[in-house]
């Protein structure tokens, strides 16, 4: 019996990325500049969220400090770009060099944290990364000569290339940059996940002792996984710096790390598509909550009370509802729906009905209730 010829994974992924690129870049022409900016923001979040979902969902390491790694990437990009600006380098490729610098810096930071955290599990890792998230922005105040403390740094950016035309909106260019970064991240991660590293990560997540008995170098894989996700976060942070044209510690608080976690879990932990949903929702949910409350007509006193607070409460409520209704996140919901539809179409129940999807997290060993 011969196995059917399969297209190699890399080629398949590249083809998919190319198709996606064409569609998305076309989309930026359809959307107005503000939507392009939102798309760009979602793409920047996606870089970091994709790395984080691989770390949390496929490797079982909970990190609450990826916002700090984004900050490392962002500040590196800012400082390198400002050096370029000071020396009059206005070429576009300089930006690529800065982003690479950001990725390298975040990778180094990730390596340091990953090594320190290699022996930590569960809430202890979460605690360490939480404190990293809070402490790293404080570096900007301690070394305020270089980092300018709370004031932050502005980022020199080359203008939109002339070849695109004089009327090309900046926001579309920013969307292009961010989407390119996001697609690159997804491509790299998709390949990693399907390869040996991905298998080792999942093995460790499912049963660490068995994995180690099978010859997988557990500590090394843990560190590599952390470093890979840190590199992605660095790229995402670098894109943040490009989109905002400035960096400051207030933009990289603990809330950012928690928002990334939110994006990962609400989208569907462990799946790259889930990271896409999560990043989109992160940008859109707050926007929708704001729009909803803005549209209500209220007396003046009540309006001041509700302003800001009502969207916050709505956002929180949405999170709770989504988590209760769709424990596998949006992607989990879509997978189930997809299987149900396929089952109906093919007229027989799906093989996986009742079995958890292989990439989902193993059920948690918590106390169950009477």
């Amino acid at each position: 019996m011969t196995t059917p010829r399969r297209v190699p994974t890399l080629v398949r992924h590249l083809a998919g990325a190319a198709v996606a690129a064409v569609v998305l870049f076309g989309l930026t022409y359809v959307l107005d500049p503000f939507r392009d900016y939102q798309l760009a923001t979602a793409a920047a979040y996606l870089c970091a969220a994709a790395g984080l979902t691989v770390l949390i969902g496929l490797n079982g390491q909970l990190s609450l400090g990826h916002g700090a790694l984004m900050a490392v990437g962002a500040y590196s990009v800012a400082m390198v770009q400002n050096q370029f600006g000071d020396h009059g380098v206005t070429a576009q490729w300089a930006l690529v060099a800065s982003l690479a610098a950001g990725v390298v810096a975040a990778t180094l930071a990730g390596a340091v944290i990953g090594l320190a955290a290699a022996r930590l599990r569960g809430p202890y890792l979460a605690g360490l990364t939480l404190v990293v998230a809070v402490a790293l922005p404080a570096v900007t105040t301690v070394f305020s000569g270089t980092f300018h403390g709370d004031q932050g740094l502005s980022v020199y950016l080359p203008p939109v290339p002339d070849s695109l035309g004089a009327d090309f909106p900046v926001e579309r260019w920013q969307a292009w940059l961010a989407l390119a970064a996001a697609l690159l991240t997804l491509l790299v991660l998709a390949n990693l996940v399907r390869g040996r590293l991905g298998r080792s990560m999942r093995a460790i997540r499912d049963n660490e002792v068995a994995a180690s008995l099978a010859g997988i170098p557990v500590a090394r894989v843990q560190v590599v996984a952390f470093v890979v996700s840190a590199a992605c976060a660095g790229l995402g942070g670098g894109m943040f710096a490009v989109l905002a044209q400035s960096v400051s510690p207030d933009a990289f608080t603990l809330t950012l790390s928690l928002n990334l976690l939110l994006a990962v879990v609400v989208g569907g932990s462990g799946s790259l598509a889930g990271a896409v949903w999560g990043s989109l929702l992160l940008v859109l949910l707050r926007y929708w909550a704001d729009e909803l409350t803005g549209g209500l007509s209220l007396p003046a006193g009540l309006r001041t009370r509700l302003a800001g607070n009502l969207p916050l409460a709505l956002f929180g409520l949405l999170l709770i509802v989504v988590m209760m209704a769709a424990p596998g996140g949006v992607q989990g919901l879509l997978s189930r729906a997809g299987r149900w539809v396929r089952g109906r179409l093919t007229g027989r129940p799906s093989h996986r009905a009742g079995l958890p999807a292989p990439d989902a997290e193993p059920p948690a060993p918590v106390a169950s209730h009477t």
Partner: protein
Amino acid sequence: MDRFLFLTVDGLSHGAVYAAFALALVLIWRGTRIVNFAQGVLAVATSYLAYTVTGRSGSYWLGFLAALLAGLVLGAVVERLVMRRVADAPPLNAVIVALGLVLVGQGVLGMLYGNQFLPFPAPFDRSAMTVGGVPLVSRFDLFVFGTVLLLMIVLAVLFTRTATGLRMRAAAFAPPVARLLGVRVGRMLTLGWALAALVGALAGMLVIPTGLGLHPTAMDTVFVSAFTAAVVGGLDSPAGAVVGGLLVGLVLSYVAGYLGAGTTPLAVLALLVVVLLARPAGLFSGPQARRV
């Protein structure tokens, strides 16, 4: 020397509050294996209630009592209505739900009370009494120490000497076995959450007078310090939570005093790294068993 003494007492006073809060986190961890990110917002909510009760009645202690009772009720309600629904899901879902609760709580409190800092005075004088010419400890500090000590004694007695405590420990340690032996595991979990919220409410009442005032985000930094304290001490160990809390309080105080307020988060990070490198499961962790 004066400075050192002052910083030590200041650190221990804040540390006692972190210890109490860390105890609440450990309580919930031992019972449910989740870190309760909503602990801070529950404490703030009960403090707001105390503010209203004190404002209406004129008595601080009535508000204090109301906060503690509200803590019990709120903790039980949150467990029954919200956390129970996500108990069978992956543990991260419970974290997200808790974060959602934080946002809902802060939003609702902001809507009810506004986003200004409300004055929240301490029940006792906060000026330091001089001992041998050195301003040392204030009456309020003594109150904090006393209350936290009393709390720990009460919790210790509850867990080790009463039947309810035994049932709670059984429910946390081995739920299926406990259920077979007739323990109502669900009820014990609710009780655990109620107690944890009570402890959190107490911590809130003790720490908010020392800050900028009552505000929906008033407990955010306390949560981070207390979580660090619990991790330093070991999430399974109540004694660890207390030691961890005092340690974190002291470190924060010394670093702020000798190096400046901006460097305190880095010092806490250093403390955490040092402890976790040596003992990956906290200071008071026992030997780790693994199922093979």
